[in-house]
Structures are given as structure tokens and as C-alpha cells.
């Protein structure tokens, strides 16, 4: 190999951004086309530095916008390379048009999304508005709750996305600043272990195969468009989740770290639980443990894979609880929260009589404190005791001013 390997300690102290950049180095990305935006910038900067220091054999393409960044990634992926980039917030929003191109063209690009609020007002801190914006784009969406997971899920994302039965792009989400800029111990894989896990990139219908020329990005109208979209949806609904589960198992054999489509914490005998994503899962886990000392059987369900949505697995995880709170870190702007709606959909045709209530929290990086969660679990227990939801169905947590609630 023409590049140098890096000696890593068994545990390195990395923030989420550096963990993702290291994973991109170890996967030996061929092309990164990127445009910087807080808080994701250190990911692509990190890759660029590894490239400059001869730790990667690849190409860094500097472009004039995030739209161009994803467009460059699409071109490179269609040409037949292993491709990744990173973005956040407004940059993600600018990419949206090309996100649909990437997934429709079935190009296995990996996008690290460091979640950040969407303006206005302008805000660089973490919430899930950008993640929610991408949820109908046809990408696979993994959610990391800490730097370790941001590192691990990158390998898993490449392995799933590039499989010839899948060939769909994947996002790896982490919370802006809370994960991306918080240094923690990260258990590493050696360069050989990591590369061996993702394997050599196997091109498919690549433009650089001159003996089999292809046209990428064709136009279809009412005669063909529906069939293409149906095929993509079918593959997302039937092929991706089994492939992710298999990859989670393979990764556990390699690393000892086991991921699940739906992460369940203290759920075996839980009466009340919260469903959330990102760093909030870790806060909720800690509070759930403390609630149990107070006699409230609390549990936590973390969404690990947001798309394809693990409909059946979530219904199974929630089948025996008595009260559920969904925590949406994105303003629904005129509706119930996304998680509230999705989970109501999962449960509606089941036998559960669980009481479902929704919460909107943490917008623009507002802290979700343990006190908030203690109060929330108490509300859920009060719902269980009363046999009905005693609060409005949608409440805001941690916003100043008169109590804000709807529905």
C-alpha cells in the first residue's frame, strides 16, 4: 500500500468529529467532496489532514457549497469510488436536492451529519431539525449517541450501504457539540481490522468501466418514475433492516460492541418509558436508573436506525409498557412530533393500551436536564396511576415563559 498506517492505542480520547474522521481514514475513502460548516467541519478537515499526511490514498475536492459537495460525491460514487462527506444544518438543507439524487441513483455515499438547529434564528448548536429534514430522502439513517458510536457506525454504514443488494446511501448522525466536540474514551480498531471489516470497495454499474458504458441520472416521467421509487422503497422496507442486523452481529464479533435497530434499556419490566435519540438517550438511561430507586419502573428506548423506520421492532419493544413519552428534538411546526406520529402508527393496530404523550425539547441546543426527565417520568407514572393521559398530548420541555402545551 502506498499510504502509511497509524498506530492507535486501544482506547483513544476522541470527540465525535475526530472519531468519524478516523473511521473515514480507516475505510480509505477514495473521494471526499466537502464544504465546511459548524459543527461538522473537523470531520472533513480531519480527513484532509490524514490525506495530506499520507495516511489515506484518496482525493479531497474543495467545492463552493454543500449542494456542490454532495453533487461531487454523487459524481465520484457513480464513477465507482468509495465516497463520504460531512455536513450540518443549513449545509444539510442546501444538500437536500442532491440527497434525493444520491438515493434514487442508488449510490452508497456515507454522510456524517452532525445535528444542528435550522435557522431562523441562526443557531450553531445541536438539535435534530436537520436529521428530521432528511427522513424522506431515501437514505439509511443511523443515530450515534456518543463518540464511540459515531466511530463504529461509520464502518457499519459503509458495510451496509455498499452491499450490492442494498446500494443506498447512509447518514451517520451525531449531536452537534454534545457528541461532536465532547472528548470521550473511544475503543479503537486497528487499521487492518477496520479495513478488513468494510472490505475493498466493489464497484457496480460504475462509469469508469469503459467496457460497459452506462448513463447515470436518467429522466423518467409518468411511465417509469413510480416503478423506480417503488423499487427503492421496497429495498428500504425489505432488505436494509436484515442487512443492518447481520452487520451489527458481524461488528459485535469483531469489536464486542453490539448495536440494535432499537436500543432497549431497563425495558424488561418497565411500566413507563421515554423514546428518544442522540445524547438524550444517555441522560434518560441515567435518570431511569434513579427513578427505579424511587419505585418507578422506568425504561428507555433509543432509536438507532431512524430510516428505514424499525416499525415492528419498536412495536415489540413497547408492547408491555403502560405509558410512553416520545421526545422530539425538532419543532414539529404545526403537527404532533415525528416520533409521536411514527410510534402512534406502530402501536395503533396492536393490543397495547399504552398511554402515549409527546414532548418537544432541546431546540437550538437547550439542555435536557436530569430534572426535566425526573419530572417527565413522574408525569408518566401519574398517567399510569390515573389510567389516562393527564397532560396535554404535546408539551414543551425547558422553554421559558408560560407553560406551553397543545392537543
Amino acid at each position, binding site marked *: 500500500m502506498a499510504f502509511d498506517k497509524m498506530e492507535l492505542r486501544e482506547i483513544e480520547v476522541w470527540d465525535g468529529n475526530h472519531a468519524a474522521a478516523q473511521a473515514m481514514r480507516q475505510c480509505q475513502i477514495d473521494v471526499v467532496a466537502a464544504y465546511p460548516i459548524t459543527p461538522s467541519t473537523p470531520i472533513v478537515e480531519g480527513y484532509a489532514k490524514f490525506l495530506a499526511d499520507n495516511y489515506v490514498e484518496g482525493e479531497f475536492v474543495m467545492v463552493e457549497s454543500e449542494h456542490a459537495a454532495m453533487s461531487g460525491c454523487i459524481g465520484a460514487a457513480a464513477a465507482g469510488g468509495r465516497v463520504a462527506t460531512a455536513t450540518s444544518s443549513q449545509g444539510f438543507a442546501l444538500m437536500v436536492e442532491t440527497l434525493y439524487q444520491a438515493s*434514487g*441513483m*442508488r*449510490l452508497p455515499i456515507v454522510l456524517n451529519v452532525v445535528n444542528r438547529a435550522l435557522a431562523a434564528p441562526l443557531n450553531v448548536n445541536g438539535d435534530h431539525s436537520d436529521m428530521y429534514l432528511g427522513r424522506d430522502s431515501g437514505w439509511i439513517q443511523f443515530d450515534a449517541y456518543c463518540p464511540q458510536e459515531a466511530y463504529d457506525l461509520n464502518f457499519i454504514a459503509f458495510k451496509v450501504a455498499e452491499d450490492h443488494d442494498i*446500494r443506498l446511501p447512509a447518514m451517520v448522525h451525531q449531536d452537534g457539540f454534545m457528541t461532536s466536540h465532547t472528548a470521550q474514551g473511544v475503543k479503537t480498531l486497528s487499521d487492518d481490522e477496520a479495513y478488513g471489516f468494510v472490505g475493498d470497495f466493489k464497484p457496480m*454499474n460504475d462509469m469508469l468501466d469503459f*467496457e*460497459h*458504458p*452506462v*448513463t*447515470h*441520472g*436518467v429522466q*423518467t416521467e409518468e*411511465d417509469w418514475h*413510480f*416503478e*423506480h421509487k*417503488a*423499487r*427503492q422503497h*421496497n*429495498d428500504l422496507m425489505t432488505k436494509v433492516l436484515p442487512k443492518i442486523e447481520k452487520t451489527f452481529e458481524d461488528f459485535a464479533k469483531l469489536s464486542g460492541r453490539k448495536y440494535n435497530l432499537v436500543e432497549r434499556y431497563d425495558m424488561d419490566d418497565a411500566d413507563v418509558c421515554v423514546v428518544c435519540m442522540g445524547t438524550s438517550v444517555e441522560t434518560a438511561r441515567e435518570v431511569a436508573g434513579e427513578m427505579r430507586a424511587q419505585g418507578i419502573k422506568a425504561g428507555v428506548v433509543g432509536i438507532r436506525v431512524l430510516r428505514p423506520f424499525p416499525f415492528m421492532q419498536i412495536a415489540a419493544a413497547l408492547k408491555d409498557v403502560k405509558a410512553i413519552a416520545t421526545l422530539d428534538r425538532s419543532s414539529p411546526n404545526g403537527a404532533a412530533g415525528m416520533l409521536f406520529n411514527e410510534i402512534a402508527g406502530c402501536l395503533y393496530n396492536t393490543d397495547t393500551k399504552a398511554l402515549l404523550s409527546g414532548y418537544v425539547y432541546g431546540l437550538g441546543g437547550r439542555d435536557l436536564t436530569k430534572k426535566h426527565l425526573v419530572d417527565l417520568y413522574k408525569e408518566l407514572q401519574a398517567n399510569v396511576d390515573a389510567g389516562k393521559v393527564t397532560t396535554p398530548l404535546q408539551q414543551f420541555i425547558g422553554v421559558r415563559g408560560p407553560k406551553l402545551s397543545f392537543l
Partner: protein
Amino acid sequence: MAKTGWNEFEIGAMLRSFDGKIDDIAGTLQEDRAYSKNNSFMASVADWRIIKPVFNKDFCIDCQFCWVYCPDISIISRDKKMVGIDMDHCKGCGICVEVCPTNPKSLLMFPEQADEETELANWPAKDEEKK
């Protein structure tokens, strides 16, 4: 093809240009290439045209100007001899007529429904005023 279901085509918004493997495509004449049915070469767009060029080989000097200028690669030339026009792909733009240097021109535009034999029989004579 119109009845092909969602599960019966290759994934991605992509189409193959040729059936099977190709080799030396630049050295292979169009009629000898294994174009796939999806290749635009296989689709006739003759109905886009409302006026058409007619080629009169009696005056042609095989200068290749029409072949060079045609924006649709619709002038058929073999061994630097003008053979005719690919009427499945010609859009009737008239550029070939515009660039034709002979007197009278070896290509002229006529309404799509004009009879080619009749127009060739009535081809204009040499314009003596042109120098």
C-alpha cells in the same frame, strides 16, 4: 418494455448504452455497434422534424462540411464520401444546407411531406451570379 414491473429492471437511475461488453467503439461503425434498446440511437425522433434536408449527390464534392457541422451526427459519411442522412435522428435544423459550399447546393430543405424524387428532378440550376 412498457409492461415491465418495478422488480424487473436494474436498480438506480441508469441505462446501459450497449448490450454486453464493448471494445474499440470509436473504431466500430454505428451500424455494427451492439446498441442497447435504451440507447437514444435506437429511438426515432423523425417526428420532431417539420422540414427535411434532401441530398443531391450530383453536386456533392464530399467536402464533409455538413458532416462536421451537423449537431445530431445525422450526416452519414463513409470513407470520407457523403452517403446520405440519418432520417431517424435529423431534426431538420438546416445547418447542413447553410454550410454546403456547392453551386447549386447539394442539400436543400423541403417540407417534410415533399416527394424526394420530384424535388431532385426539379433541383435548381447553377446560380451564375454567384462567384
